[in-house]
Each structure stands twice: as structure tokens, then as C-alpha cells.
């Protein structure tokens, strides 16, 4: 049922008071996750597949100061889109509500420190798991190796869960104390956003800087201002609409290249760890790495969101366009949704 802008604004006091209480939205909706759109755009086909004929709200906040340079996106959508300017709204809030800005920076600093400590522990656990799994299973010792391998991965999963709980705690504390949605400036932007979203049949979320995108969307509770309109998201956009944001790169120029949980997602779709640009960022031919990644995040699916792929969340279940692959615990890439 379509709500008025005022009803949408009043539905929750903060992202962490809303619905499930974990900062994610539980309102069921269609969510399409696409591969990167820059060189081989398929967004228009996805819009067509949803039967959208009306106007489209776009979020390009991950592009930061280039947020407004969305002419190509607009042209691709036949001029039907309008930009919610979520990054610019955040800049406006932080420039004029200094108290909130200081509080945000303090929260971010706490999250940064928590991330560093988590990375420290994670590095050791991942090294141990890789070492055990690399040794294979010598004759006569298979059972021992398999059990140790499983325990090693379980240790990582436990650490990931603990870390996510700490992130949640920091965010809850921040939203509970500062109640951004009730502050004048944020409230005014939310009113505008609610009105704009009321005119949209679809919300598109582009990629960019994943935590900036996520935290700006959360600051204004953009997803909570929607009714049942579907979402199409790609790249960092796909990551933020899932339940947890996992950063990844197997071969960075510095550091070990250990995938890490970095934030709670907005939870518009469940049971997925989206991997945009997986073909460039992951060593997909390395069976040990692929297997470890898939086992670590199971039962969530880990789709390789490369150009021309599409994953479709129907509110309860996933389906995938043919050719969309996911990382499998066997170490191989298998057809997603198969």
C-alpha cells in the first residue's frame, strides 16, 4: 500500500529502531543486482524487465563530488531519472550541523579502530586456514585435516560475526544518542527525499566509495522512505543493499589481500555477498581461495558480478540470469541459483 511522504518519514525513529532493529529494512521488494555498468551497460534491459514506465530515482552518492555528473546514466535511462543528491545533502548537513558532524567523525574513528583490530586477528586466522587447507589431505590423515580445516573456517566466521556485532553496537549507540532523523536539517532533507521517492517507480543505486555511499543512505534512511518500489543496484550499490558489506581484493599492491567484513548493509536483499568486478579483483582460478571465500560466507551466495550478469531478489528467494556465476565451496565457479 502506498504511504504518504509523512507516513514514510514517521515510520521509524532511526535505522536501528526500524523493523528488525538491526539497521536493515525488512520491507519485501524486488532487488536486482547487476554487473558493473560503465563499459557494458545493461541497466536499461533490467528496467525493461521490471516493466518500469515511469520516473526513476537515482543515487550516485558513491561518486562523491562527482555525484552530479550523471548525464550518461540519465541518457541511458531515457531521461526519466532524477538524482536524489544524497552525497550533496550529506555535505550540507555536515557543513551546517557541526555537532552532528563531529559525532559522525567520532563514530567513524571508533569503527576504524575496530576495523584495524579485526584485521589484525583476521590476518592470523586466515593464514592458519590457508595453511591447513593448502596442505591437502595426506593419505590416512584426511579426517584430521578436514576437521581442522572446518574449525579454522569456523573461527573466521565467528570473528566476522563478532566484528559485525561491534559495528552494529557502534552504529546503534550513535543513532540512539544523536537521533539524526530528528535533527532539523536531516529531517528537512528526509521530507524532500520522501516526496521525491513518492514520484519514483524505481530506485537505482550506482557504485563508488562503498562506505560513504552506505553511510549517506543510512543517514537519510533512504530505503525506509520507499514503499514497495524495486531497487536496481550495481557495484558498490549492490554491496550496500545486502546485509553485510564485504571488502575484497586478492592482489592489492600492498597488504595481504584478505577479504574483510566492513559494515552492516541496508539489508534490502538477504543471503548474498555481492562481488562486483570479481573477475578483476579475485583470483577466480585459485580453487583454494575460491573455496575458502565461499565456505567462509556460506550459506550466503557469493555471486561474481561481472559485466552483463544479473541477480534477481524476489523478496524471499534468488534467481539469476543465465551465465551469472557464483563462488562454490568446491573451489569452482558454478551457475548462480542452480
Amino acid at each position, binding site marked *: 500500500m502506498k504511504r504518504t511522504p509523512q507516513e514514510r518519514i514517521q515510520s521509524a525513529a532511526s535505522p536501528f529502531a526500524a523493523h528488525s532493529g538491526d539497521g536493515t529494512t525488512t520491507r519485501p521488494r524486488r532487488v536486482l543486482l547487476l554487473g558493473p555498468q560503465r563499459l557494458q551497460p545493461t541497466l536499461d534491459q533490467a528496467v525493461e524487465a521490471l516493466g518500469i514506465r515511469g520516473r526513476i530515482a537515482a543515487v550516485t552518492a558513491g561518486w562523491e*563530488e562527482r555525484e552530479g555528473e550523471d548525464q550518461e546514466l540519465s541518457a541511458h535511462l531515457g531521461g526519466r531519472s532524477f538524482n536524489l543528491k544524497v552525497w550533496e545533502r550529506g555535505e550540507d548537513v555536515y557543513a551546517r550541523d557541526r555537532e552532528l558532524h563531529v559525532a559522525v567523525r567520532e563514530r567513524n574513528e571508533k569503527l576504524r579502530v575496530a576495523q584495524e583490530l579485526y584485521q589484525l586477528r583476521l590476518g592470523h586466522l586466515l593464514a592458519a586456514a590457508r595453511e591447513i587447507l593448502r596442505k591437502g589431505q595426506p593419505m590416512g590423515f584426511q579426517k584430521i585435516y578436514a576437521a581442522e580445516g572446518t574449525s579454522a573456517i569456523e573461527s573466521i566466521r565467528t570473528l566476522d560475526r563478532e566484528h559485525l556485532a561491534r559495528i552494529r553496537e557502534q552504529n546503534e549507540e550513535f543513532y540512539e544518542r544523536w537521533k539524526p532523523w530528528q535533527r532539523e536539517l536531516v529531517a528537512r532533507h528526509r521530507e524532500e527525499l520522501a516526496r521525491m521517492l513518492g514520484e519514483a517507480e524505481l530506485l537505482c543505486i550506482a*557504485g563508488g566509495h562503498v562506505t560513504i555511499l552506505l553511510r549517506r543512505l543510512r543517514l537519510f534512511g533512504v530505503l525506509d522512505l520507499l514503499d514497495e518500489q524495486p531497487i536496481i543496484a550495481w557495484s558498490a550499490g549492490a554491496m550496500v543493499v545486502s546485509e553485510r558489506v564485504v571488502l575484497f581484493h586478492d592482489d592489492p599492491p600492498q597488504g595481504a589481500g584478505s577479504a574483510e567484513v566492513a559494515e552492516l548493509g541496508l539489508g534490502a536483499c538477504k543471503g548474498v555477498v555481492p562481488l562486483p568486478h570479481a573477475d578483476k579483483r579475485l583470483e577466480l582460478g585459485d580453487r583454494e581461495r575460491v573455496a575458502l571465500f565461499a565456505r567462509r560466507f556460506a550459506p550466503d551466495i557469493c555471486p561474481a558480478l561481472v559485466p552483463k550478469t544479473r541477480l534477481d531478489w524476489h523478496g524471499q528467494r534468488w534467481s539469476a540470469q543465465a551465465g551469472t556465476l557464483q563462488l562454490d565451496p568446491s573451489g569452482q565457479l558454478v551457475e548462480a541459483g542452480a
Partner: protein
Amino acid sequence: MSSFLEELERHAHDAPAELDRWLDSQSIPHVDGRSVTFAFHGQVDSIHLRHWIFGLPSSQAFTRIPGTRLWHLSMQLPENSRMEYKLEIARGAARQLVHDPLNPAQAHDPFGGNSVVYGAGYEVPSWTNPDPETREGHLEEHEIASDVFGEKRPFQLYFPARYRTMRRYPLLVVHDGDDYVRFSNLKTVLDNLIHRLEIPSMVVALIQSPDRMREYADDPRHAEFLVRELVPLLERRYPLLAQPSARGLMGASFGAVASLAAAWRYPSFFGNLMLQSGSFVFTDVGQHDRGPVFDQVVRFVNEFRDNPGRPSERVFMSCGQYESLIYYNRSLYPMLQQTGMQVRFSESRDGHNWENWRDRLREGLSYLFPGPLWYVYE
């Protein structure tokens, strides 16, 4: 005897045209594990391999296969090595240095260039070549009226793709910048590393000196030019971050000396130093034997070793194991660490050349200026 050498001997008595055809069809120099075999076909009295690998005789004679005009030389070349060389051909009293006619691989430098052979496992890094997906930055010609030098000095500025005046950028100043662009593909490397998010978008000033052997050897005018004239001008004119942690200074050979010397004279101005194959020659006792051009360098490095201070925050050093400078660089590394700076040192199986410096750019620049790779998914 290696199988390739056996093949050479088998073909050595072919008709000249047939032999040339066969040689053209081969990959020469022929690399087999740690062994490399060079070949030459022609009417000469002797032929030598001239290279610049410190520790090996710099001239090595080819052997003629008796009764033929086919010459060969085999030597060890460790894995992942790059070796630049020329052939010295003697006909009568005349001697001539030439590129290896059977080897299409060449490296270029301000003096012309050399043939180059790659040891097993070496690959030209993909990020040094143009990538069609990469958004390109651009170069602009500029000049600055320098009071210190009493003349106008030209320089180039690199602006990254999607440069926007509302954003603020780090600044990297590169000694011998034109040469880095021409011989180390610096512009392509910057484009690629920025596109891949391995370094942040940055503005890069490419400077050249008309008298580098003097000005780069701890000439106080050069340091003053950088710190009091060039960087302030750029920070006034462009949206730069204007803080030590966002400033970098880089150079190779004498350019590395100039970088360290400027940072030493103006500590904490440049937060990041990239020192490639620095000519950091010093003496513990007695005189150096590198000629008068090194006098100022040795004086500086000796003074620096006595009183290093803390010139910068982070330093990336690299040096080839085949350079005579490796000893000096290895000596300097622990000393720089003791100053409290964060220092990384990277060695390679390569010599004192622009492709060695090119191949270390990713490691060095991403260490000094880590990009947003981990957080950006576009």
C-alpha cells in the same frame, strides 16, 4: 652442451640465407632456465657482449663456430632478471657498439638505448602498458620564473582523469620528469594505477634541470627552488592538499640524491620520498674513485650520515642488484630506518636503467600514496 647450442651447431653450416631464416625464426637470446645463449651471424673479427652488471666482467667474448660466421655466447642469468646490453663488433681496428640484430627487445634512455634480455619468469608488468579501459589523465606545459636560479624554468604538470577543482589532491614532484615519461612510461603508469585505485588521483609536477649533475647533487638552490618557489606556486594555483603527508618527492640516480637532499635541508616539508637507485656514494675513510662529478654527492652523503635528522615520514627505496650502487643503498636503508621514518627497500635483479625504475613504480607509489582500492567499486 645445451640443446639450443647443439641446434646452433647443426645449422651453422647451412647456406647463409637459410641460416638467417632459421635464426629469425628463433627466440634469441635463447633463455633456458638460468642459462641464456646469445648468437650473431656476420663477417666480424671478434664480438663481445657489453653489459653493466656489477660483479661480472663487463665485456664477454663470443665464440665462433669453426669454419662459419656464426658466433655464440652462453652465460648464467638468474630468474626474473632483466639485463641491458650491446654488442661490440670488431672489424680490423674498427670497433662498434650495436644493438643485437637478432633481438627485437630494446630499452630506451636519454643516451639512445640498449638491447634487453629477460631472464626466465620476468614479465613486463601489465600496468606499464596502455589499457583501453583506463581513463587517461593529461600533461600540460608550464613554466615558473625562478628567483633562485634567476631564470624561467619549464616543467610539466600531470592532471589525473576526472580532475575536478572542487577536490583536493596530493602532489608528487618528479626529478627528470620528462625522462620518466619517455623511458619509464610514467604517464601511462599513473593513468593505470589511478584507474585501478591503487594510488589516489594526484597532480604530478615533472621537472627537468639544465645542469642536473650539479643542481641535483645537494645544490642548496635546488632545494630552495622546490620548497620556496615551485611547491608554493602550485599550492596557490591548484587544489592541492598542501600538507606534508600529501607531498611527495621522487627521483632516480642523481634525482634520488636531489630528493633526499631537499628533504634533509627542509625536514618535514615532503612527507613522502621515492628514491630509486640513489647515487648515495659515501666514504668511511679516504677518497672515492668516481670522479669529480661525485665530489658534492659524497660530501652530502657523508654529512647526512653524520647528521641525518628526520627528513620525511615515509620513504620507498629501490635499487637493482646488478648496480654498483647496491652497496650504498643497502647501507643507507637501516640508517634511514633509525631516523624513525617508515622505510621500505625493494631490490630487483636489474641494473641502473629506466625500465628497472618503471617496474618499481607500482610498489613504491602505492606504498607512499595508498589508493582507495579497498573501498571503491565503480
